[in-house]
Protein backbone atom coordinates (compact mmCIF):
# COMPACT_ATOMS: atom_id res chain seq x y z
CA UNK A 1 0.00 0.00 0.00
CA UNK A 2 1.00 3.58 -0.46
CA UNK A 3 1.16 6.62 1.77
CA UNK A 4 1.77 10.24 0.86
CA UNK A 5 3.74 12.30 3.38
CA UNK A 6 3.36 16.07 3.32
CA UNK A 7 6.79 17.35 4.18
CA UNK A 8 7.69 20.87 5.24
CA UNK A 9 11.08 22.29 4.42
CA UNK A 10 11.80 20.73 1.03
CA UNK A 11 13.35 23.55 -0.92
CA UNK A 12 15.26 22.02 -3.78
CA UNK A 13 15.96 18.94 -5.86
CA UNK A 14 18.60 17.63 -3.49
CA UNK A 15 15.99 17.51 -0.73
CA UNK A 16 14.04 15.05 -2.91
CA UNK A 17 17.16 12.96 -3.34
CA UNK A 18 18.00 13.06 0.36
CA UNK A 19 14.54 12.04 1.49
CA UNK A 20 14.29 9.36 -1.18
CA UNK A 21 17.51 7.81 0.11
CA UNK A 22 16.42 8.19 3.75
CA UNK A 23 13.08 6.47 3.14
CA UNK A 24 14.69 3.73 1.02
CA UNK A 25 17.23 3.08 3.77
CA UNK A 26 14.26 2.63 6.12
CA UNK A 27 13.19 -0.26 3.89
CA UNK A 28 10.40 1.26 1.77
CA UNK A 29 10.10 1.96 -1.92
CA UNK A 30 9.74 5.60 -2.90
CA UNK A 31 7.11 6.15 -5.58
CA UNK A 32 7.86 9.82 -6.01
CA UNK A 33 9.26 12.88 -4.27
CA UNK A 34 8.36 16.40 -5.35
CA UNK A 35 9.86 19.42 -3.62
CA UNK A 36 7.49 21.92 -5.25
CA UNK A 37 4.46 20.07 -3.90
CA UNK A 38 6.27 19.16 -0.68
CA UNK A 39 5.41 15.48 -0.86
CA UNK A 40 7.11 12.13 -0.56
CA UNK A 41 5.06 9.10 -1.55
CA UNK A 42 6.22 5.73 -0.30
CA UNK A 43 5.14 2.14 -0.84
CA UNK A 44 5.42 -0.74 1.62
CA UNK A 45 3.79 -4.10 2.29
CA UNK A 46 3.40 -3.49 5.99
CA UNK A 47 1.78 -0.54 7.77
CA UNK A 48 4.45 -0.34 10.46
CA UNK A 49 7.07 0.62 7.89
CA UNK A 50 5.35 3.96 7.29
CA UNK A 51 6.18 4.93 10.85
CA UNK A 52 9.86 4.18 10.14
CA UNK A 53 9.60 6.31 7.01
CA UNK A 54 8.12 9.21 8.98
CA UNK A 55 10.92 8.94 11.55
CA UNK A 56 13.55 8.80 8.83
CA UNK A 57 12.19 11.98 7.24
CA UNK A 58 12.08 13.75 10.59
CA UNK A 59 15.62 12.55 11.40
CA UNK A 60 16.88 14.48 8.38
CA UNK A 61 15.47 17.66 9.87
CA UNK A 62 12.17 17.96 7.95
CA UNK A 63 8.71 18.23 9.43
CA UNK A 64 5.94 15.79 8.46
CA UNK A 65 2.35 17.07 8.50
CA UNK A 66 -0.58 14.68 8.83
CA UNK A 67 -0.18 12.53 5.74
CA UNK A 68 -2.95 10.31 4.24
Amino acid sequence: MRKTFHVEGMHCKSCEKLLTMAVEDAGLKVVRADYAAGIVEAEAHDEAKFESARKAIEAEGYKVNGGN
Partner: protein
Amino acid sequence: MEHELRLTGLECDSCARVISRVVERIGASVKDIDYSMGRLVVEVNSDAQLDDLKAALIEAGYGVDGNDTNRGVMARPLAFLGKLLSNSTDFDAERRIAESSMFSLLIMLAGLFLLTYVLQIVSPRFVPLLALAAVGTVACSTALIHFRAFRQPFSCMSGMMIGMTIGMMAGFLAGALSGAANGMLVGSIVGMAIGMGMGAIAGARNGVMGILEGLMAGIMSGTMGAMLSVMLFNDNVLLFLIFLFASCIFVLLGLSYMMLREGGSVLPSSVPILAKSIAANVAVFAVFGALLVWGPRAAFAWAGAS
Protein backbone atom coordinates in the same frame (compact mmCIF):
# COMPACT_ATOMS: atom_id res chain seq x y z
CA MET B 1 43.08 4.83 0.34
CA GLU B 2 42.21 8.48 0.18
CA HIS B 3 40.91 10.09 -2.97
CA GLU B 4 39.87 13.61 -3.85
CA LEU B 5 36.96 14.35 -6.18
CA ARG B 6 35.85 17.63 -7.73
CA LEU B 7 32.09 17.93 -7.78
CA THR B 8 29.84 20.36 -9.64
CA GLY B 9 26.14 20.96 -9.38
CA LEU B 10 25.97 21.49 -5.63
CA GLU B 11 23.03 23.78 -5.22
CA CYS B 12 22.38 24.06 -1.53
CA ASP B 13 23.36 22.78 1.90
CA SER B 14 21.19 19.66 1.56
CA CYS B 15 23.61 18.59 -1.14
CA ALA B 16 26.36 18.06 1.43
CA ARG B 17 24.05 15.64 3.29
CA VAL B 18 23.01 13.93 0.05
CA ILE B 19 26.64 13.43 -0.87
CA SER B 20 27.53 12.08 2.58
CA ARG B 21 24.65 9.61 2.33
CA VAL B 22 25.66 8.47 -1.14
CA VAL B 23 29.21 7.87 0.07
CA GLU B 24 28.02 5.94 3.15
CA ARG B 25 25.64 3.77 1.11
CA ILE B 26 28.54 2.71 -1.11
CA GLY B 27 30.39 1.70 2.05
CA ALA B 28 33.10 4.36 1.86
CA SER B 29 33.58 7.23 4.27
CA VAL B 30 33.85 10.99 3.94
CA LYS B 31 37.15 12.47 5.12
CA ASP B 32 36.47 16.05 4.16
CA ILE B 33 33.82 17.94 2.26
CA ASP B 34 34.09 21.57 1.17
CA TYR B 35 30.72 22.57 -0.20
CA SER B 36 31.80 25.97 -1.57
CA MET B 37 34.75 24.52 -3.50
CA GLY B 38 33.00 21.35 -4.56
CA ARG B 39 35.84 19.37 -3.04
CA LEU B 40 35.17 15.90 -1.65
CA VAL B 41 37.80 13.74 0.00
CA VAL B 42 36.81 10.12 0.60
CA GLU B 43 38.32 6.97 2.05
CA VAL B 44 37.74 4.02 -0.27
CA ASN B 45 38.92 0.43 0.01
CA SER B 46 39.47 -0.26 -3.70
CA ASP B 47 39.41 1.23 -7.21
CA ALA B 48 36.19 -0.67 -7.89
CA GLN B 49 34.54 1.03 -4.93
CA LEU B 50 35.78 4.39 -6.20
CA ASP B 51 34.17 3.71 -9.61
CA ASP B 52 30.90 2.70 -7.91
CA LEU B 53 31.02 5.92 -5.92
CA LYS B 54 31.54 8.08 -9.00
CA ALA B 55 28.64 6.33 -10.79
CA ALA B 56 26.37 6.84 -7.77
CA LEU B 57 27.27 10.53 -7.56
CA ILE B 58 26.58 10.99 -11.28
CA GLU B 59 23.25 9.22 -10.90
CA ALA B 60 22.43 11.53 -8.02
CA GLY B 61 22.82 14.40 -10.48
CA TYR B 62 26.27 15.78 -9.66
CA GLY B 63 29.12 16.38 -12.08
CA VAL B 64 32.23 14.42 -11.09
CA ASP B 65 35.79 15.41 -12.06
CA GLY B 66 34.86 17.47 -15.08
CA ASN B 67 31.89 15.41 -16.32
CA ASP B 68 28.75 17.46 -16.83
CA THR B 69 25.86 17.12 -14.42
CA ASN B 70 23.36 14.58 -15.66
CA ARG B 71 20.42 16.91 -15.31
CA GLY B 72 19.33 17.88 -18.80
CA VAL B 73 15.65 17.88 -19.72
CA MET B 74 16.02 14.47 -21.34
CA ALA B 75 18.02 12.89 -18.48
CA ARG B 76 15.04 11.45 -16.63
CA PRO B 77 12.96 10.34 -19.63
CA LEU B 78 16.01 8.57 -21.07
CA ALA B 79 16.79 6.93 -17.73
CA PHE B 80 13.19 5.68 -17.56
CA LEU B 81 13.41 4.33 -21.11
CA GLY B 82 16.66 2.58 -20.24
CA LYS B 83 15.09 0.87 -17.22
CA LEU B 84 11.98 -0.07 -19.20
CA LEU B 85 14.01 -1.76 -21.92
CA SER B 86 16.28 -3.60 -19.50
CA ASN B 87 15.00 -6.45 -17.38
CA SER B 88 15.13 -4.54 -14.11
CA THR B 89 12.21 -5.15 -11.78
CA ASP B 90 11.31 -1.47 -11.83
CA PHE B 91 8.43 -0.53 -14.08
CA ASP B 92 7.27 -4.11 -14.45
CA ALA B 93 3.65 -3.10 -15.02
CA GLU B 94 4.60 -0.46 -17.58
CA ARG B 95 6.76 -3.00 -19.39
CA ARG B 96 3.86 -5.44 -19.62
CA ILE B 97 1.58 -2.76 -21.03
CA ALA B 98 4.21 -1.80 -23.60
CA GLU B 99 4.76 -5.45 -24.55
CA SER B 100 1.06 -6.13 -25.05
CA SER B 101 0.83 -3.02 -27.23
CA MET B 102 3.71 -4.17 -29.40
CA PHE B 103 2.08 -7.58 -29.62
CA SER B 104 -1.25 -6.05 -30.70
CA LEU B 105 0.55 -4.07 -33.37
CA LEU B 106 2.28 -7.19 -34.65
CA ILE B 107 -1.00 -9.08 -34.90
CA MET B 108 -2.64 -6.20 -36.76
CA LEU B 109 0.18 -5.82 -39.27
CA ALA B 110 0.38 -9.59 -39.80
CA GLY B 111 -3.39 -9.67 -40.38
CA LEU B 112 -3.08 -6.78 -42.82
CA PHE B 113 -0.33 -8.55 -44.74
CA LEU B 114 -2.39 -11.73 -44.87
CA LEU B 115 -5.57 -10.06 -46.11
CA THR B 116 -3.80 -7.93 -48.71
CA TYR B 117 -1.08 -10.09 -50.21
CA VAL B 118 -2.07 -13.65 -49.39
CA LEU B 119 -5.88 -13.74 -49.46
CA GLN B 120 -6.00 -10.61 -51.67
CA ILE B 121 -9.28 -9.39 -50.19
CA VAL B 122 -7.94 -5.90 -49.55
CA SER B 123 -6.53 -3.76 -52.35
CA PRO B 124 -2.83 -2.90 -51.81
CA ARG B 125 -3.50 0.79 -52.31
CA PHE B 126 -5.03 0.89 -48.82
CA VAL B 127 -1.94 -0.49 -47.13
CA PRO B 128 -0.44 2.90 -46.10
CA LEU B 129 -3.73 4.00 -44.53
CA LEU B 130 -4.29 0.71 -42.76
CA ALA B 131 -0.73 0.55 -41.46
CA LEU B 132 -1.19 4.03 -39.99
CA ALA B 133 -4.54 2.95 -38.56
CA ALA B 134 -2.82 0.05 -36.77
CA VAL B 135 -0.13 2.29 -35.28
CA GLY B 136 -2.67 4.94 -34.28
CA THR B 137 -5.00 2.44 -32.61
CA VAL B 138 -2.17 0.98 -30.54
CA ALA B 139 -0.80 4.41 -29.56
CA CYS B 140 -4.15 5.74 -28.34
CA SER B 141 -5.16 2.55 -26.56
CA THR B 142 -1.80 2.29 -24.78
CA ALA B 143 -2.21 5.76 -23.31
CA LEU B 144 -5.75 4.90 -22.22
CA ILE B 145 -4.78 1.55 -20.69
CA HIS B 146 -1.88 3.17 -18.85
CA PHE B 147 -4.16 5.88 -17.48
CA ARG B 148 -6.82 3.46 -16.34
CA ALA B 149 -4.25 1.30 -14.56
CA PHE B 150 -3.71 4.00 -11.94
CA ARG B 151 -5.71 3.45 -8.77
CA GLN B 152 -5.08 6.76 -7.04
CA PRO B 153 -6.81 9.91 -8.29
CA PHE B 154 -5.08 12.47 -10.45
CA SER B 155 -5.51 16.17 -9.79
CA CYS B 156 -8.39 17.87 -11.58
CA MET B 157 -6.07 19.71 -13.96
CA SER B 158 -4.10 16.61 -14.86
CA GLY B 159 -7.18 14.44 -15.29
CA MET B 160 -8.77 16.93 -17.64
CA MET B 161 -5.53 17.32 -19.54
CA ILE B 162 -5.23 13.56 -19.97
CA GLY B 163 -8.87 13.18 -21.08
CA MET B 164 -8.50 16.03 -23.51
CA THR B 165 -5.22 14.77 -24.95
CA ILE B 166 -6.41 11.21 -25.49
CA GLY B 167 -9.69 12.43 -27.04
CA MET B 168 -7.90 14.89 -29.25
CA MET B 169 -5.21 12.54 -30.53
CA ALA B 170 -7.70 9.71 -31.20
CA GLY B 171 -10.08 12.07 -32.99
CA PHE B 172 -7.35 13.63 -35.12
CA LEU B 173 -5.90 10.34 -36.24
CA ALA B 174 -9.24 8.62 -36.90
CA GLY B 175 -10.67 11.70 -38.62
CA ALA B 176 -7.65 12.17 -40.84
CA LEU B 177 -7.64 8.54 -41.98
CA SER B 178 -11.37 8.29 -42.56
CA GLY B 179 -11.44 11.72 -44.19
CA ALA B 180 -8.83 10.53 -46.65
CA ALA B 181 -10.52 7.19 -47.36
CA ASN B 182 -14.20 8.06 -47.14
CA GLY B 183 -14.46 11.79 -47.72
CA MET B 184 -15.46 14.75 -45.56
CA LEU B 185 -18.90 13.71 -44.25
CA VAL B 186 -18.09 10.19 -43.12
CA GLY B 187 -14.59 11.22 -42.06
CA SER B 188 -15.71 13.95 -39.70
CA ILE B 189 -18.51 11.86 -38.20
CA VAL B 190 -16.24 8.86 -37.62
CA GLY B 191 -13.43 11.09 -36.32
CA MET B 192 -15.78 12.84 -33.92
CA ALA B 193 -17.33 9.57 -32.73
CA ILE B 194 -13.97 7.96 -32.00
CA GLY B 195 -12.49 11.10 -30.50
CA MET B 196 -15.50 11.76 -28.30
CA GLY B 197 -15.67 8.12 -27.24
CA MET B 198 -12.00 7.85 -26.27
CA GLY B 199 -12.08 11.29 -24.66
CA ALA B 200 -15.14 10.47 -22.57
CA ILE B 201 -13.74 7.13 -21.39
CA ALA B 202 -10.48 8.78 -20.38
CA GLY B 203 -12.14 11.82 -18.82
CA ALA B 204 -14.72 9.83 -16.85
CA ARG B 205 -12.14 9.38 -14.05
CA ASN B 206 -12.55 13.06 -13.30
CA GLY B 207 -16.32 13.30 -13.36
CA VAL B 208 -18.56 15.37 -15.58
CA MET B 209 -15.90 18.01 -16.24
CA GLY B 210 -13.52 15.35 -17.45
CA ILE B 211 -16.09 13.81 -19.76
CA LEU B 212 -16.99 17.21 -21.23
CA GLU B 213 -13.33 17.98 -21.80
CA GLY B 214 -12.91 14.67 -23.63
CA LEU B 215 -16.05 15.21 -25.74
CA MET B 216 -14.99 18.73 -26.75
CA ALA B 217 -11.56 17.53 -27.77
CA GLY B 218 -13.10 14.74 -29.85
CA ILE B 219 -15.49 17.09 -31.64
CA MET B 220 -12.74 19.52 -32.50
CA SER B 221 -10.12 17.06 -33.59
CA GLY B 222 -12.41 14.66 -35.47
CA THR B 223 -13.63 17.41 -37.73
CA MET B 224 -10.23 19.02 -38.12
CA GLY B 225 -8.50 15.75 -39.00
CA ALA B 226 -11.03 14.94 -41.73
CA MET B 227 -10.93 18.49 -43.05
CA LEU B 228 -7.15 18.54 -43.36
CA SER B 229 -7.07 15.25 -45.26
CA VAL B 230 -9.78 16.39 -47.67
CA MET B 231 -8.16 19.79 -48.24
CA LEU B 232 -4.85 18.12 -48.99
CA PHE B 233 -6.44 15.85 -51.54
CA ASN B 234 -4.62 17.40 -54.50
CA ASP B 235 -1.46 17.60 -52.46
CA ASN B 236 0.50 14.86 -50.74
CA VAL B 237 -1.99 13.45 -48.22
CA LEU B 238 0.22 10.55 -47.22
CA LEU B 239 3.14 12.79 -46.33
CA PHE B 240 0.84 14.90 -44.18
CA LEU B 241 -0.55 11.79 -42.47
CA ILE B 242 2.93 10.56 -41.63
CA PHE B 243 3.83 13.88 -40.01
CA LEU B 244 0.52 14.00 -38.18
CA PHE B 245 0.86 10.48 -36.83
CA ALA B 246 4.48 10.98 -35.78
CA SER B 247 3.54 14.16 -33.87
CA CYS B 248 0.48 12.67 -32.19
CA ILE B 249 2.35 9.55 -31.12
CA PHE B 250 5.11 11.71 -29.68
CA VAL B 251 2.48 13.58 -27.67
CA LEU B 252 0.92 10.34 -26.42
CA LEU B 253 4.31 9.02 -25.31
CA GLY B 254 4.90 12.30 -23.50
CA LEU B 255 1.48 11.93 -21.89
CA SER B 256 2.38 8.50 -20.52
CA TYR B 257 5.62 9.95 -19.20
CA MET B 258 3.68 12.78 -17.56
CA MET B 259 1.37 10.25 -15.90
CA LEU B 260 4.40 8.35 -14.64
CA ARG B 261 5.97 11.50 -13.18
CA GLU B 262 2.77 12.50 -11.46
CA GLY B 263 1.27 9.20 -10.43
CA GLY B 264 4.40 7.14 -9.98
CA SER B 265 4.83 3.62 -11.22
CA VAL B 266 1.65 1.56 -11.63
CA LEU B 267 1.03 -1.34 -9.24
CA PRO B 268 1.41 -4.58 -11.21
CA SER B 269 -1.87 -5.85 -9.77
CA SER B 270 -3.84 -3.00 -11.31
CA VAL B 271 -2.80 -3.73 -14.90
CA PRO B 272 -5.88 -5.12 -16.68
CA ILE B 273 -5.92 -8.57 -18.23
CA LEU B 274 -3.73 -7.94 -21.23
CA ALA B 275 -5.34 -10.55 -23.47
CA LYS B 276 -8.54 -8.48 -23.30
CA SER B 277 -6.65 -5.33 -24.28
CA ILE B 278 -5.01 -7.06 -27.23
CA ALA B 279 -8.38 -8.45 -28.37
CA ALA B 280 -10.01 -5.02 -28.04
CA ASN B 281 -7.20 -3.37 -30.02
CA VAL B 282 -7.42 -5.88 -32.84
CA ALA B 283 -11.23 -5.70 -32.92
CA VAL B 284 -11.23 -1.89 -33.15
CA PHE B 285 -8.59 -2.02 -35.89
CA ALA B 286 -10.61 -4.61 -37.83
CA VAL B 287 -13.82 -2.56 -37.71
CA PHE B 288 -12.11 0.74 -38.51
CA GLY B 289 -10.06 -0.86 -41.27
CA ALA B 290 -13.19 -2.34 -42.82
CA LEU B 291 -14.74 1.12 -42.81
CA LEU B 292 -11.75 2.62 -44.61
CA VAL B 293 -11.65 -0.06 -47.29
CA TRP B 294 -15.33 -0.86 -47.83
CA GLY B 295 -17.11 2.10 -46.30
CA PRO B 296 -19.00 4.80 -48.15
CA ARG B 297 -16.81 6.80 -50.48
CA ALA B 298 -17.27 10.41 -51.49
CA ALA B 299 -16.33 11.67 -54.96
CA PHE B 300 -12.96 12.81 -53.69
CA ALA B 301 -11.44 9.93 -51.80
CA TRP B 302 -8.28 7.91 -51.45
CA ALA B 303 -7.10 6.40 -54.70
CA GLY B 304 -3.72 5.28 -53.46
CA ALA B 305 -0.42 6.99 -52.74
CA SER B 306 0.56 9.24 -55.69
